[in-house]
């Protein structure tokens, strides 16, 4: 009977023509097509525009040859160098101030038995759901030279604190807006420290501050650095907040002003873009160095995070007071923006003179296209991101296709491309391409959607990857074993199980795209095509438009807040169905 298996195999091949090998070949063309389409998309809308920007920065305008002359101009110009150091200073200071805000919140809520820890962590993330520049004007009204706080300080103490003067204002607004990145990362890494890490140190004689310095702090460090470098990049690249605060001597505003006032041919805008990319890459690199080989998530089965301590009465009062003060500060932009949106006149007084709903009426009557545009653009961008993210995740995780990893890397590299740079790249690359109706591709509203999609792709891609990774391959194999073909397996098993993750990915893209401004500011050609963030920016330019601008801002907060809440619901719901 020794020959039976071989004979059976031959018979099986004869009897059932689509043998496994043949079927695998048959599946390939579809995968290759998907790979090609995604690669083409990334090439056209990410790689080429960015390379164009870099090329122009090094290109002699007359001969088209390589030159460093533009960089020479940049380095020898006082205004640009001052802008560069201002940007560096503002970014570093924002990291420092954001750390001061985030550290106590993270530490107290993870380390101590703390009533309201969830509330603190929820409120702590709230700033992220507001466009950073939206709060800038409100912050000016609250903390500016003649803002509410300084008016009160002047009346009772006779002092005036320059919160919002010049660069201080940018640092203040940015750190209040971006500190959640540090809070989230730091909280996660503190929670991931197993209590045995701490107990073993106590067992060997360490306690108190030494225990914190030698064990807890180093273990939480990678998370802190990841958060801090994110804050650094965001602040360094941000265009809208300094512009709204009328701070022009920073890199991003300079690039914007050169391109919009001098023109698309001016090389300095491109040089600045290269500098912005360079620093983004640098801080991402530092963050990856900090995280390399340091998967410090040490929680073991049965173990929880750090042991929660009980605070004494005095400590508790001090801690609650500190956290209340921080939360008050953090929520100030929301509060200010809301007040502004219902204020009749608010100037030189701690609170508005009167209240009205006229701004909302005005926004809905005159400028509702901003809202519909935003919903369409962000919705399309989110959809594109989820489709491309799922395709890449599938190619990487479920096929052994050579090059699939590269799609992942290229898509993720969008993280290091500032919105401003992408905007400039699109203008330069697509300006010469004319559409059938004779207008330029760069002026087509769809290009804004593509820019938003590329900008948010890394986040959606990670969500799709995570969702697919959670599905054990054996679940799919079981379906195949029971007779389902590949496409049906995807439709009946993979997609339903991924649904939660996909929805989360879509909403993340949607919500952040809805308040994006850096790329949009470069690409919007007419206010009919403009999204909400752009409208807000335009309104905020004039004192008369501030009320309406604030109303738009509140609408943006509501849209983003609702969708974040929805994604939370979906994630909770999907969480129960993770495969073992």
């Amino acid at each position: 009977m020794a020959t039976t298996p071989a004979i059976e195999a031959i018979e099986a091949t004869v009897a059932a023509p689509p043998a496994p090998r043949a079927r695998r070949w048959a599946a390939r063309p579809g995968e290759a097509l998907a790979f090609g389409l995604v690669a083409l998309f990334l090439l056209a809308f990410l790689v080429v525009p960015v390379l164009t920007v870099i090329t122009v920065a090094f290109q002699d305008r007359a001969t088209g040859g390589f030159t460093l002359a533009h960089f020479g101009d940049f380095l020898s110009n006082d205004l640009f160098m001052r802008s560069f150091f201002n940007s560096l200073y503002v970014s570093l200071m924002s990291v420092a101030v954001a750390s001061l805000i985030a550290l106590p919140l993270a530490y107290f809520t993870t380390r101590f038995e703390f009533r309201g820890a969830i509330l603190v962590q929820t409120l702590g993330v709230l700033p992220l759901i507001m466009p950073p520049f939206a709060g800038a004007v409100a912050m000016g009204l609250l903390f500016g030279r003649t803002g509410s706080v300084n008016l009160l300080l002047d009346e009772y103490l006779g002092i005036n604190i320059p919160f919002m003067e010049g660069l201080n204002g940018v640092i203040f607004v940015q750190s209040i807006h971006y500190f959640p990145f540090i809070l989230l990362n730091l909280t996660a890494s503190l929670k991931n420290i197993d209590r045995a890490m701490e107990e073993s140190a106590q067992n060997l004689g360490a306690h108190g501050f030494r225990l914190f310095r030698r064990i807890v702090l180093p273990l939480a460090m990678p998370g802190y650095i990841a958060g801090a470098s994110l804050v650094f990049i965001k602040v360094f690249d941000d265009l809208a907040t300094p512009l709204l605060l009328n701070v022009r001597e920073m890199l991003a505003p300079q690039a914007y002003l050169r391109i919009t006032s001098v023109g698309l041919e001016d090389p300095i805008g491109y040089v600045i873009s290269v500098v912005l990319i360079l620093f983004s890459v640098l801080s991402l690199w530092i963050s990856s160095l900090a995280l390399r080989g340091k998967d410090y998530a040490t929680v073991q089965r049965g173990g929880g995070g750090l042991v929660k301590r009980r605070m004494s009465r005095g400590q508790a009062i001090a801690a609650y007071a500190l956290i209340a003060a921080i939360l008050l500060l953090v929520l100030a932009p929301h509060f200010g923006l809301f007040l502004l949106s219902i204020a009749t006149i608010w100037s030189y007084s701690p609170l508005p003179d009167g209240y009205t709903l006229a701004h909302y009426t005005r926004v809905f009557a005159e400028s509702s296209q901003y809202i519909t545009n935003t919903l369409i653009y962000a919705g399309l961008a989110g959809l594109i991101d989820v489709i491309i993210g799922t395709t890449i995740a599938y190619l990487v995780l479920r096929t052994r296709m050579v090059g699939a990893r590269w799609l992942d890397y290229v898509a993720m590299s969008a993280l290091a491309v500032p919105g401003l740079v992408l905007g400039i790249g699109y203008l330069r690359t697509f300006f010469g391409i004319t559409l059938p109706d004779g207008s330029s591709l760069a002026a087509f509203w769809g290009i804004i959607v593509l820019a938003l999609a590329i900008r948010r792709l890394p986040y959606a891609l990670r969500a799709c990857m995570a969702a697919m990774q959670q599905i054990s391959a054996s679940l799919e194999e079981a379906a195949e074993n029971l007779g389902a073909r590949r496409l049906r397996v995807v439709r009946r098993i993979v997609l339903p199980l991924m649904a939660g993750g996909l929805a989360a990915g879509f909403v993340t893209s949607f919500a952040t795209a809805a308040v994006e401004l850096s790329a949009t500011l470069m690409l919007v050609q007419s206010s009919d095509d403009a999204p909400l963030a752009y409208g807000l920016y335009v309104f905020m330019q004039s004192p008369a438009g501030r009320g309406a601008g604030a109303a738009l801002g509140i609408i943006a907060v509501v849209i983003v807040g609702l969708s974040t809440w929805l994604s939370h619901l979906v994630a909770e719901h999907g969480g129960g169905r993770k495969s073992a």
Partner: protein
Amino acid sequence: MSALAQETLLAREPAGIRVEGVDLSYGTTRVLRDVNLEIRPGEFFAFLGPSGCGKTTLLRLIAGFNTAQRGRVLVGGQDISDLPPWKRDVGMVFQSYALWPHMTVRRNVAFGLEERRVPRAEIGPRVDAALKLVGLEGMGERRPAQLSGGQQQRVALARTVAVRPKVLLLDEPLSNLDARLRVQVRRELRDLQQRLRLTTIFVTHDQEEANTVCDRIAVMNEGVVQQVGTPMELYDHPANLFVAGFLGTANIMPGTVLRDGAAQAFEIDGGTRIPLPPGLDVPAGARLMFRPQDVSLLPVGTEAPGRRLLEGEIVHREFLGASIRYGVRVAGAEVLVDTPHMGGEGHLPVGGRAALALDAARVKLLAA
């Protein structure tokens, strides 16, 4: 470095441990109930019991990671109940090893010495001695993530013995190792404990681990110490049904005690009577317990003078190599019987009938 020099660097006068009247609750759950233990200096002692029996809680109480509502813990005659963990000088090896991933192996091992302000000149040799003791010399510059599970455990052990603790606490030290390594490591643990003459408590749920390495064992269940003794004492003279069932395999048969003047007997449900020695103190609600090897299986109808015969049907058979284990259904209960297997001998058929021969001297009457 000679073995002797190593030991003088790392060994110290052994200390005993006393646990007196400890009660511990989490909320309304009583985790430890009136625990009293005396662990002798230099002894290798085990806390053995199923999960949730309180053994780890008791170990963590000695290390200072939880607080008892009542009672106290003494190490080397000193009451340490009110000392914080970092002042107790009891070395603990954690189940997860708890090596700090941001430090090299050397830094991990040196940590406790640095915290104790040991002079720098002395730290180096003691770290070397500790690493050599566990066979990891030359691995000092690696990070924990670069080591295998077995090596990580050795680092955890080296880190703890380097500080010369008064006593050594091991929390399920073998649970994260694969089966083959477990046998090797438990021998090494025993060897190391003997060389350092270090009072050691070993927490485990595995009776084989406890039996093979420990001098004495405290068997625990539901927060109560059931019995303390050497492995053989516990196996041969279990104090109750829990201990009998937890250490080794036990056949337990329900029945009633019959008394007629001074004479007494145990009647197994179903009718067979086992005479008991007069004056034997039988606890209330007692059941009959015997080990599978303390009973023999005979063909039906065999004469066995002085032994009681119970007839039953063979319902399953497992061949274990040195012996054959039969499951025999007798009077509604299933009894396990081990018969030695001699080369070439056959076995009894499943489904056939056989007689169990009980030796009255080898059965015990135990309460729950």
